């Protein structure tokens, strides 16, 4: 039985570390977008490499957690929900890494008038990601707080939608070439996607929480 409790503690630590990685991924993403908008390309490249490595580590950690949950037949009743949550969180982290890599590869032309909007959109999307991670942590430790964090995810996702909408309107009313406008819209969509995916995780979480209440 002591072995079971030891394994449980190890697994708790792994899940916490994994969620830390997701939060750090969001912070790296925010930092990277800031560097790009300020034209600090070397810093962007470094940030992108860090994020890539973080994403690979998180993938390994997630697989470890999944294997342990299955091999030790832990939380049989909530296992499906937990695995779903971890995989959905991983998709959010993947999106941050892919989007930052696309900035590095495609070097979109961002007109000065919308730079602040891009940063605000990034802030809102990363805030949604952070609230999502807090909600997932609460699901494990303090189920009464899940609802509060989910409300924050919805709030930031809505804010990201509004900012993206404003940004796209501004872009298409500017004097830039159509190809540049489409490119800027494409990147706005990608940044916005992070908050959408965070919201998907929170939707899964709502259902999982109801099941735990039974």
């Amino acid at each position: 039985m002591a072995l079971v409790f030891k394994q449980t503690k190890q697994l708790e630590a792994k899940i916490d570390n994994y969620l830390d990685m997701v939060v750090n991924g969001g912070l790296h993403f925010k930092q990277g977008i800031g560097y790009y908008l300020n034209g600090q390309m070397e810093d962007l490249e470094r940030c992108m490499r860090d994020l890539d490595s973080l994403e690979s580590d998180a993938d390994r950690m997630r697989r470890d957690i999944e294997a342990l949950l299955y091999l030790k037949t832990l939380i049989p009743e909530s296992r499906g929900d937990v695995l779903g949550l971890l995989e959905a969180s991983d998709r959010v982290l993947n999106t941050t890494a892919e989007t930052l890599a696309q900035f590095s590869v495609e070097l979109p032309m961002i007109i000065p008038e919308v730079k602040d909007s891009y940063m605000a959109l990034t802030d809102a999307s990363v805030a949604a990601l952070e609230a999502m991670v807090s909600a997932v942590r609460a699901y494990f430790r303090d189920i009464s707080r899940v609802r509060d964090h989910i409300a924050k995810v919805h709030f930031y996702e809505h804010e990201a939608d509004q900012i993206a909408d404003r940004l796209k309107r501004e872009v298409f009313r500017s004097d830039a070439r159509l190809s540049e406008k489409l490119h800027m819209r494409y990147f706005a969509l990608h940044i916005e996607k992070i908050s959408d995916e965070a919201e998907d995780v929170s939707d899964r979480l709502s259902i999982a929480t109801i099941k735990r209440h039974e």
Partner: protein
Amino acid sequence: MIWFFLTSGLFLGWSLGANDAANVFGTAVGTRMVKFKTAALVTCLFVALGAVISGAGATHTLGKLGAVNALAGSFTVALAAGVTVAWMTRIGLPVSTSQAIVGAIVGWNLFTSSPTEMTTLTTIVATWILCPVLAAVLAFLMLKFTRLFLYRMRVHLLRQDAYNRFGLIVVGAFGAYSLGANNIANVMGVFVQASPFQDITPFTGLTFSGTQVLFLLGAVAIGVGVVTYSKKVMLTVGGDILQLTPVAALIVVLSHSIVLFLFASKGLETWLAGHGLPTIPLVPVSSSQAAIGAVIGIGLARGGKGLNFRVLGRIASGWVTTPLAAGALAFVTSLFVQNVFEMEVVRPATSAVRWNVEAPSAVDQGLPAIVWAPNLVSQVQEAVVQPAMSTESRGIE
């Protein structure tokens, strides 16, 4: 020959193990919180302890219902109950061994024209209602309390899972002990009066009575039933009636175990009597009914949603048919054993006669004073007592 007669009791023990172990660990195994092997091992060990240490109380009550006093009679009664339980188990229904044995004893009473002690029968039947109700109430209250506790204590999901597994094994052990203490009466109760075993002393200071050895044998049979056939019923209890969370599974086992313990504990009875409180009858209650009652309590605490009333209906119908089927089978089997095999299923003219020391006037007048000894007597035919006899009890057969 004695060993042959005991086989029906052992068969009944096997049936009880196959069926009633599901009530102790069914929810735990059904929710995959405890491995079947662990469940089987703990059940075997603690059923044996419960049977040997605390099995006497409920057995005494069953003995009062009908004094099956011939070995062939005991064989017939246990066989009828065992076949009924095995058949119900085979079709996957959690059936009550208590109801089967009570039905079989009453069937034997009817065949042999032995009187059925109505007070005892009423008490037993009343527990058939009280037992699931009590389990449901306990489960309902415990689930509400546990939810509040977990909500406030903020235990990590994984740690809660580990505590729950540990709890399921500990409470399961308690449940198995209570099952052994309460239900060994069903398996071996009818053989107590015809027990072939003597007291044994394996170590100095530790003596097992013949009855305890008999109970141990019954517990071994229960263990064989657990290992060989209980998995199917465990999965029925665990998942068919209501999808249970692991916490709810723990509460079901705990409620079931408490109820069984209440109806088997001589210590509790003595304590209640000592404090002038009403005592709980020591009756072999239905472990299946306790488990199903607890599952219903959980369902009600969740607002009544998710209860599978079709499966509940099938189980309830089993509760009605079990005693009737066992009674009819005992009657027919007794007829068969007596008339085809020409074996004595009842000792016809047994009486116990003693001087009525509390009414010396009767002795003084040279009149016979006849006192019923319920564990020995089915009917008194005639007893003539000489005034010169000792005032000690003396059985005349």
